[in-house]
């Protein structure tokens, strides 16, 4: 009995594989397994290769699997592309019709099944997927009933006959495997049956927004962010919110500022190109001290880049991308589950620090399903709505006009002063992106400028949030620093590093990317070697760390920027190399393993004098 299996299915994009996988993952989750699912897909709608991988386990899993146990392939291209990732001895199930050939040197059993023929006999092309599901269940020892139950509830509205056909197809697939390969089993331990949630990060962000009091969303579709607004537009009618698809990202962010100014909690969600377009207006939010929340689901950049591929290369743009000096707060989730309270918290931070709060999600968190523990999604464990410094309407009513100072020197411990909201008598003020005085009116006084600039920047140096989270051994020899999707792999790598090297390892998850929590990082790393793992080409977070004063001599780096996810193995290998003193900078990916590299920070090469 296995504690964990990895199932993969490959075929043509747009052919319905996604819904097959959705069924598989949901049934697995309902059976009490932990699920981590990911996929390869291209920026096209129909045609071309796609593959979906699901790692299911009786324990929490949060990283790509080291290999695949059962690979289902609907075309030869999928075999060619996926077969080299299987575990030795794995099962590769192919449609008889494709005349499958296994590439040389692959240690796997290629089994063929007359999927096309059986589908034809069933009389509905959609049934191929159900045959595949049945067959997969049989190999993995998952009860077919779970699949059937799901089909009943999901497609019940399409009529009994249709459901019966689905059931029949599933059973046929199951039976075919049992009958033909009675010995071949990858049986996984039974799931604990506990009810968990399964969702993608974009859905988690939508949930967090809902819990965080966000009722206005202004956004523009973009991969891989669109599902955030698409989730909220479905949820909002229940709570009286409004999600507007704007004409572009410039409009989206400015609309959020408008709503924020008025007192609503507003959010926009976008990816890199949108972040670039929002730079000017983020400065406006900072200048007017208006709360606004922005989710960036990072993808391959720059420009259009690789819209369907993983990357974490927007950090510099998120923290420093606009002209002038302006405050921002940049958070990063370490898992889908974490994104729910983090998004809710973002609104509290925005209301308390009166500046843009950005969430640096990434494609793999945004789009790939992960198990979320019920505790992570409990309403009662969400941060309470905290509106931050607000003027008191009764107090203002008692004053005359032109008394309330929106940009008053009377600030709270964070350097923030109370804001008034439209509708509050005597609270009128001017919120302008131009430099201004206490009432908001434009002034170019030099002394005022210095005060206002300090006022704005100072606030973010004291952001009250859990900036870092440490996992693994105390007094580690190596601390892997990561954020976003890499955190999962990093956490799973701890045991492997320790096993491989006999040294102690830890992981420091960065939850607050900016302002860089250097002191907190130093406190955790102590004398250890710190290895920053990030999915970009120039080591953006390392650069930020060094710029913020971190000693470069003690900073190691593993980068991957080929669009694929960082794996446990890569982190382990890089950590081993670091601990062995083999180098300071490493890269991985592009079809090659971990290898030494030059310092990725861009500087001008030394020249002859």
């Amino acid at each position, binding site marked *: 009995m296995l504690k964990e299996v990895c199932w993969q299915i490959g075929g043509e994009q747009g052919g319905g594989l996604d819904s097959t996988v959705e069924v598989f993952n949901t049934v697995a989750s*309902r059976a009490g397994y932990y699920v981590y699912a990911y996929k390869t897909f291209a920026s096209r709608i129909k045609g071309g290769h796609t593959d979906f991988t699901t790692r299911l386990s009786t324990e929490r899993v949060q990283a790509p699997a080291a290999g695949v146990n059962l690979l289902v392939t609907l075309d030869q291209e999928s075999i060619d592309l996926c077969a080299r990732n299987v575990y030795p001895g794995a099962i590769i199930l192919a449609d008889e019709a494709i005349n499958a050939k296994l590439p040389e040197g692959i240690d796997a059993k290629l089994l063929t099944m007359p999927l096309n023929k059986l589908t034809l006999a069933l009389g509905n092309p959609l049934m191929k997927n159900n045959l595949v599901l049945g067959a997969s269940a049989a190999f993995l020892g998952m009860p077919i009933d779970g699949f059937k139950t799901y089909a009943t509830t999901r497609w019940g509205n399409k009529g009994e006959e249709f459901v019966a056909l689905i059931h029949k197809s599933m059973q046929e697939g199951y039976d075919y495997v049992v009958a033909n390969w009675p010995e071949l089993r990858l049986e996984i331990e039974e799931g604990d049956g506990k*009810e*968990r*949630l*399964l*969702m993608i990060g974009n859905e988690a962000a939508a*949930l967090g927004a*809902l*819990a965080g009091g966000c*009722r*206005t969303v*202004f956004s523009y579709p973009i991969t891989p962010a669109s599902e955030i607004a698409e989730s909220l537009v479905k949820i*909002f*009618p*229940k*709570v*009286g*919110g*409004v999600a*507007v698809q*704007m*004409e*572009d990202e*410039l*409009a*989206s962010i*400015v*609309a*959020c*500022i*408008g*709503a924020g*100014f*008025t*007192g*609503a*909690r*507003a959010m926009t969600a976008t990816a890199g190109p949108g972040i670039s377009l929002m730079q*000017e*207006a983020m*400065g*406006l939010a900072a200048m*007017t001290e208006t709360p606004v929340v922005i989710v960036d689901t990072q993808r391959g950049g720059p420009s259009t880049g690789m819209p369907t591929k993983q990357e974490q290369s927007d950090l510099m743009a998120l923290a420093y991308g606009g002209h002038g000096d302006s405050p921002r707060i940049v958070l990063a989730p370490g898992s889908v589950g974490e994104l729910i309270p983090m998004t809710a918290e973002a609104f509290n931070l925005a209301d308390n620090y009166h500046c843009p709060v950005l969430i640096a999600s990434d494609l793999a968190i945004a789009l790939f399903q992960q198990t*979320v523990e019920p505790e992570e*999604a409990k*309403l009662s464990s969400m941060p309470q709505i905290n509106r931050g410094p607000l003027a008191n309407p009764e107090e203002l009513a008692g004053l005359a*006009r*032109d008394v309330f100072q929106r940009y008053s020197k009377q600030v709270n411990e964070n350097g923030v002063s109370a804001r008034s*909201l*439209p*509708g*509050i008598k005597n*609270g*009128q*003020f*001017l*919120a*302008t*992106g131009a430099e201004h005085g206490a009432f908001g*009116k434009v002034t170019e006084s030099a002394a005022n400028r210095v005060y206002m600039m300090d006022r704005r920047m100072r606030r973010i140096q004291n952001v009250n949030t859990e900036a870092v989270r440490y996992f693994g051994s105390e007094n580690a020899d190596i601390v892997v620093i990561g954020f976003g999707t890499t955190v999962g792999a990093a956490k799973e790598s701890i045991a492997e590093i320790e096993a491989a090297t006999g040294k102690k390892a830890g992981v420091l998850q960065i939850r607050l990317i900016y302002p860089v929590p250097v002191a907190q990082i130093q406190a955790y790393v102590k004398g250890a070697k710190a290895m920053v793992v990030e999915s970009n080409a120039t080591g953006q977070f390392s650069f930020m760390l060094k710029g913020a004063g971190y000693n470069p001599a003690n900073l190691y780096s593993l980068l991957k920027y080929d669009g694929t996810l960082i794996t446990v193995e890569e982190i382990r290998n890089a950590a081993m190399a670091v601990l062995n003193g083999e180098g300071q900078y490493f890269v991985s990916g592009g079809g090659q393993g971990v290898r030494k590299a030059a310092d990725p920070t861009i500087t001008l090469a030394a020249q002859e004098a």
Partner: protein
Amino acid sequence: MATMADFRTSEKSWWCPGCGDFGVLAALQKALVELATEPENVALVAGIGCSGKIGNYINSYNLHVVHGRSLPAAQAVKLANRELTVLAAGGDGDGFAIGMGHYMHALRRNVDITYVVMDNQIYGLTKGQTSPTSDGGFHTKSTPNGNIEKSVNQMQLAIASGCGFVANGLSSNQKQLVQIIKQAIQFPGFALVNTYSPCVTFNKVNTYDFYKSELVNVDEDPTYDRHDKFAAMKMLMEHNELVTGIIYEDPNSTRYEDLVKGFKPEGIVNQKWEVDDETWNKVLAQYK
């Protein structure tokens, strides 16, 4: 009830003496007074330009955004708090150059706001460059050999986009302008109040006198039917947009806000945002 004084601020104006924007500001304040609005219930979103400075001179909630983006903000203000009287304001460059995309989409979205454009057919604040509404042949710093682009016909565009209230005023014709602004504010949906607001410093062609002699006033034409869309379009095409008055009004306009499913009359800010368990669990259920 608020008076003109209540809508004024103590700021000394940064506009040049004689600037058309004074008249637009005064008409706007007058209209707000006559509609019995209170300063705290007015939100004005302005763009960047000489005209965009208007927020310094009116006692209301003012948001002065980046160049060209008053409309997205203003629409959001209204959605966030439906009880406010929401105005957007700015210049011809702000609205029809960099802001053109937002203008076109605000027109068709039909959120209940009023957009007051101070069109001086020039870039004032950047010291006199050709604007999208500048006339052909117009000489400025940026077109020293004369403007070679066709000018934007913002009112025709409004009508072609389904905008339900299209009006044009002249800064110096206070009486008419106050009337127009009042009706625009009362109109249920997006209302365009274009105004010709002369730049006395940089535009020596499109002056008060020029407009006075050139503008055709449809408010004074008893045969003109402001509910006839084709007629409005034809009028604007024939007179090269030199038309004043309420040019088009759609008697059947429905606000965007009224079409949003589940949207509450009080908008957003006046709600309680805490989610109840039932709603939360219903939403969570789809992920189980």
